[in-house]
């Protein structure tokens, strides 16, 4: 079991014929993902990596029954690609592209919410369900390890760090989801936590937030109302000076709002143990989930 992505998921890749698209599609295939099609407007009818390439998502879905889309197209076209996938009936869209204009994403979100399409990202590493041999995005394959830990994180590279650290201690993942670091995102921490709550394979959730915004505080509210599984928290950017924009469009502290302190306190109030370091995440997982599931 897993959330969002499983061995039945049929993935199409928008922008597959580009260099990043090519590289990561190869990696997805190597991981075992059922990639069924590529979409590159104007290149329809050709083949790439042994997969059919279509001019539009609509055609790709009609011909291959794809239900998940990975978006690797450049920033100016990313929001349109997301909406295209949604309009074609894809259930889950994962947008890897970073530096997508914020107002483009505001429009794409409004478009998707009307259709009930789920979006992960943009500016995210995507997600991976190791037990299902399924990955959409760019999480390094070697980090995937089947297990009971659900991971949800705003940062890509931190997700990998956490996966690696836990993996070395024998704790694999049900699903790891990088929700992305942009101010306007698809799935939020709360959305993913709710999915993990309902997933029997997931025994514990690691939630790695960072400064900026209030999604961590919202998630803390959700957990505070009663969450069925242990949650370990982590907040990066704790030593960042206020008022400085830290790369992620998302990561900026303005006054007290969105500070690491506010997030840590909100989580702790909700009964979440918050780790100071990645090593401590591992320690806390060991305490709450003494036996890692056999892989």
């Amino acid at each position, binding site marked *: 079991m897993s959330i969002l992505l499983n061995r039945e998921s049929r993935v199409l890749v928008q922008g597959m014929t580009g260099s990043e698209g090519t590289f990561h599609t190869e*990696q997805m295939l190597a991981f075992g993902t059922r990639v069924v099609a590529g979409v590159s407007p104007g290149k329809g009818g050709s083949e790439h990596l042994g997969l059919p390439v279509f001019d539009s998502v609509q055609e790709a879905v009609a011909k291959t029954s794809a239900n998940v889309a990975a978006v690797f197209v450049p920033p100016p076209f990313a929001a349109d690609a997301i909406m295209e996938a949604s309009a074609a009936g894809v259930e889950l869209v994962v947008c890897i592209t970073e530096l997508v204009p914020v107002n483009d994403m505001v429009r794409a979100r409004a478009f998707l919410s009307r259709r009930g399409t789920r979006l992960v990202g943009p500016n995210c590493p995507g997600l991976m369900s190791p037990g299902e041999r399924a990955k959409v995005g760019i999480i390094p394959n070697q980090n995937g390890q089947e297990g009971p830990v659900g991971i949800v994180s705003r940062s*890509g*590279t931190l997700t990998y*760090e956490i996966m690696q650290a836990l993996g070395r201690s024998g704790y694999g993942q049900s699903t790891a989801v990088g929700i992305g*670091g942009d101010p306007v995102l698809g799935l939020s921490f709360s959305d993913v936590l709710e999915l993990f709550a309902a997933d029997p394979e997931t025994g514990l959730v690691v939630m790695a937030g*960072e400064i*900026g915004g209030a999604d961590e505080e919202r998630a803390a509210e959700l957990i505070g109302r009663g969450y069925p599984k242990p949650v370990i928290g982590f907040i990066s950017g704790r*030593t960042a000076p206020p008022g400085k924009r830290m*790369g992620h469009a998302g990561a900026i502290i303005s006054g007290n709002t969105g500070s690491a302190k506010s997030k840590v306190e909100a989580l702790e109030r909700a009964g979440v143990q918050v780790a100071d370091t990645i090593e401590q995440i591992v320690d806390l997982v060991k305490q709450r989930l003494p036996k890692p599931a056999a892989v």
Partner: protein
Amino acid sequence: MKLLEHQAKAQFRQAGIECPMGRLAHTPAEAAEAAREFGRVVVKAQVPIGGRGKAGGVKLAGDEEEARRAAEQILGMDIRGFTVPAVLCEEALDIARELYLGVALDRDRRSLVVMLSFAGGMEIEEVAETSPEKIAKLWPDPFSGPHPFEIRQLALDALAAVGGEGTLPKSKLLAQLVPLVQNLYSLCQRLDATLCEINPLVVTSEQRLIAGDGKVEIDQSAEFRHHDLVKELGDDQEAAASGDDPLEVEAKRRGLTYVHLGGDVGVIGNGAGLVMNTLDLVKQHGGEPANFLDIGGGAKAEVVRNALEMVLLDPAVKGIFVNIFGGITRGDEVANGVIAARDQLGIRVPLVVRMTGTREEEGRAILEQAGIVPAVSAPEAAEKIVQLVAAQGGRR
């Protein structure tokens, strides 16, 4: 990018939003000329930062002589690190009331929000904290923008929040606010802005609504759609930004996401979360990060070289910690960049490279071949760089 007041107002005017008559002055003489033209004027420092008024950067001048003197005092003044290169001289409005009107990105709602309050002016931030109910809000559909009926309701809500005491008659308020909000919202969308704010929105004694001050922030990710404007405004801002951190100015020129932090441990990583965590690690091990530098996803060797060069421009840097976890970014590319930089730049400060993830083995092999030993874990690497810097006399 943040627009200066006079730049924001130029955009407002183009969008059909009324602003006071005014002109930019770079010299006291020009300020005096403005007073000759407009009569009583307000002389305002043009710096990309708030709190000008409290810093003495805004003065009322009754005549030419007063305008000249005000400009003399303000031009060249230092306001929170910014030297004032120019003043905006505007006709002084006959202010009956100050409202607040803003269109801003609301992260939580994943939407632009329109905010209107009758408790506008300098205290709006305090109002937002202590009595947020006094700020009426509207989250328009991003495709339709705010409908007139929604804007009217926003105005009615804002009015109700202050007990109906709106200074000007309700019908006049509604009639003026509908086009004003539509224009401001359109401007925000057209400029790909994340903030378009009028504070104060002045109600004059003739019951007209006029933009007393203006703030506009354009989304950096969308600047590719506004090349000419960004270039034009940016050139104009160069002078105003004279108080900016020169390292950050240089980083911007190089297209790097860099924040100067003042310590002596240079930090480079990929992914903002990872870099922030790296800063946290350096601090946890007793070091002081010199900077934040995120090379982003999929960085090529050239970017790594550029980043190293950038970090070394900071004379305080006594060692560099490169922390890479490969996803889109590939280990081999990073390794090549590090080696190229070391060789070309003749780097002498200690260099700790921690690398894992995509093409980790290939990257490590390249580094090892070139005589650089990569660290295994991030905490270990942090500890090492802090020790090395301390050994060089850096802070510990």
